[in-house]
């Protein structure tokens, strides 16, 4: 028994290489920082970049296979691998951001850079685990790992009141939601006697269950997920934290932890609450289990999320806060992909995440650069900016246009596929809400563009130079945003083949 378990363990470890690499990297980061931190300030960053590179190498090798490891605690499949790509990419980009972030340079944070990168990596590790875990306990653990890392990151600039306030709100809010989630888990455990989502599904189908308890459990768990993906009405922390946290962290949270939350949510719903015995007419559609209308719940959350996010965003004059609300709205869009309960929706969701990665990070980066040059995130400082730094102006415009979802940008393709999913599933009302929302969103995105180009600079008129690094980073984000906007075949292919989850069609 023991040696048999040993073999099993070896197998598991083989397929666990990316996570192991990450873990080792974060250990290295902290150690090397202790040793060389004085001399090479950014050693942590370089180490983590290398580590991420290695991780991505292993991840690429993993792509396509589906394994279940560590005694059905964790799976490796295309779905999780796709998300891992996203986490790696965003972590990579964020670290590059952080290398130039004035917030980290000019505050006490500069003395804690090693730990900063350590936390970035630990968050990424948590996200990896979230993407792959198929056991409620594992889900809870990895969620907590992500949360704890992000609490600290949010409050990373200790002396800044905004930052620490953000972290405090975050921790209280997060702790409560994870508490609710845990209670939900406990109910499910009681109902099915299982923690593994496949087993849960099996027992739900085999032996009867009380839909009421299941409903409570689901809603309580949604509180947990909803808080991670900041879906209305669990979104309240988002604007405050996003505004308070250092901008690099905000950008990171807006992509990585959101994506992780979605990865976990979708896997959980799809694995536990569908009826695999029934076959549906449409290819790639799932049958929902009896008595639990979770698609409706998600649909309502989605509509609420995008609408609320957009209409509040209209009011924001602080760019960071505006982007926070816009990220809420985007969570709403992405949820549309879940509503349809079809693989098409999931592929659309994956596609959108890729788009969202580039355009959102791009927008945040532009805000960061501007904040660095002008010292403010207020929309006022953007007046005439398009003439003071034309390149950034144009790039920012393109990112915003992409966020609005106007061709020929990647954002449009993402939206196109989300709406396609909805219409294919005949959920027209939500599609209409969606498109109207994207019109509404134009108001506040275009507001920035207007200030940049249609207004003349008031205080400063002198042009602002961008360093080559800035330009390079922007290009890295800009080129995909445009290229995939006109030629998205391969990406769509990737996204569609990445919906394959372990043990599911």
């Amino acid at each position, binding site marked *: 028994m023991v040696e048999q378990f040993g073999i099993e363990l070896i197998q598991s470890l083989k397929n666990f290489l990316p996570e192991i690499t990450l873990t080792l990297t974060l250990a290295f980061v902290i150690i090397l920082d202790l040793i060389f931190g004085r001399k090479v300030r950014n050693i942590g960053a370089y180490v983590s970049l290398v580590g991420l590179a290695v991780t991505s190498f292993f991840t690429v090798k993993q792509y396509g296979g589906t394994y279940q490891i560590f005694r059905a605690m964790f799976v490796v499949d295309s779905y999780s691998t796709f998300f891992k790509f996203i986490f790696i990419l965003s972590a990579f980009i964020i670290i590059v951001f952080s290398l130039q972030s004035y917030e980290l340079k000019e505050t006490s944070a500069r003395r804690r850079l090693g730990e900063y990168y350590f936390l970035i990596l630990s968050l990424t590790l948590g996200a990896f685990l979230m993407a792959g875990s198929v056991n409620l*306990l594992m889900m*809870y*653990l990895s969620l*907590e790992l992500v949360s*704890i890392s992000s*609490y*600290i990151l949010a*409050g990373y600039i*200790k*002396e*800044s*009141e*905004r930052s*620490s*306030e*953000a*972290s*405090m*709100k975050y*921790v*209280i809010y997060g*702790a*409560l939601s*994870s*508490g*609710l989630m*845990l*209670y939900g*888990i*406990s*109910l499910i*455990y*009681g109902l099915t*006697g*299982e*923690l593994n989502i496949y087993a849960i599904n099996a027992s739900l189908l085999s032996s009867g269950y009380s839909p009421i308890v299941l409903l409570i459990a689901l809603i309580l768990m949604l509180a947990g997920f909803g808080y991670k993906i900041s879906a209305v009405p669990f979104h309240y922390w988002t*604007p*405050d934290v996003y*505004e*308070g946290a250092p901008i690099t962290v905000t950008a990171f949270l807006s992509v990585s932890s959101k994506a992780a939350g979605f990865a976990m949510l979708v896997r959980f719903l799809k694995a536990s609450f569908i009826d695999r015995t029934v076959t549906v007419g449409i290819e790639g559609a799932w049958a929902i289990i009896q008595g639990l209308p979770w698609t409706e719940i998600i649909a309502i959350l989605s509509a609420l999320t995008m609408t609320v996010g957009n209409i509040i965003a209209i*009011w924001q004059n602080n760019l960071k806060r505006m982007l926070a609300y816009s990220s809420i709205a985007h969570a709403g869009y992405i949820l549309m992909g879940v509503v349809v309960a079809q693989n098409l929706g999931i592929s659309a969701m994956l596609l959108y995440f890729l788009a969202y990665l580039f355009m959102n990070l791009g927008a945040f980066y532009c805000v960061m650069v501007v904040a660095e040059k002008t010292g403010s995130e207020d929309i006022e400082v953007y007046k005439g900016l398009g003439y003071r730094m034309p390149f950034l102006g144009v790039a920012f415009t393109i990112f915003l246009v992409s966020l609005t979802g106007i061709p020929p940008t990647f954002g449009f393709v993402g939206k196109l596929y989300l709406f396609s999913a909805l219409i294919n599933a005949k959920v027209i009302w939500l599609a209409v809400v969606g498109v109207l929302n994207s019109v509404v969103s134009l108001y506040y995105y275009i507001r920035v563009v207007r200030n940049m180009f249609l207004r003349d600079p008031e205080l400063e008129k002198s042009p602002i130079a961008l360093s080559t690094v800035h330009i390079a980073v922007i290009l890295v984000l800009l080129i995909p945003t445009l290229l995939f906007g006109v030629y998205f075949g391969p990406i769509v292919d990737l996204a569609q083949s990445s919906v394959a989850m372990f043990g599911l069609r």
Partner: protein
Amino acid sequence: MQVNLSMFKNVGLEHFLVVSAILFSLGIYAVVTRKNAIMVLMGIELILNSANINFIAFSKYSTGDITGHLVAIFVIILAAAEAAIAIAIVLNIYKNFLTVNIDEIDNLKQ
């Protein structure tokens, strides 16, 4: 809702669940009402405890295996970790604001 009066005799699963439910609610009450950040943390601890009671009770009565216990252990561990972080953050808040009353800490809004 009809409740069989026999419940007051032989204590069973439901009793523990009810206790945990009450603890849960009290926890939420604490989280919502108490101004002091630390009290809020206490409330959260109550919630976690209630969840734990569920796990243990279920694993005794419903599933009959030990899994619940393990979950409980991990929950306790995480509770500790969370508490540590939370307290640290609260201390930091205290450094910056010289108060730990959450409602006075609302610079970030709207």
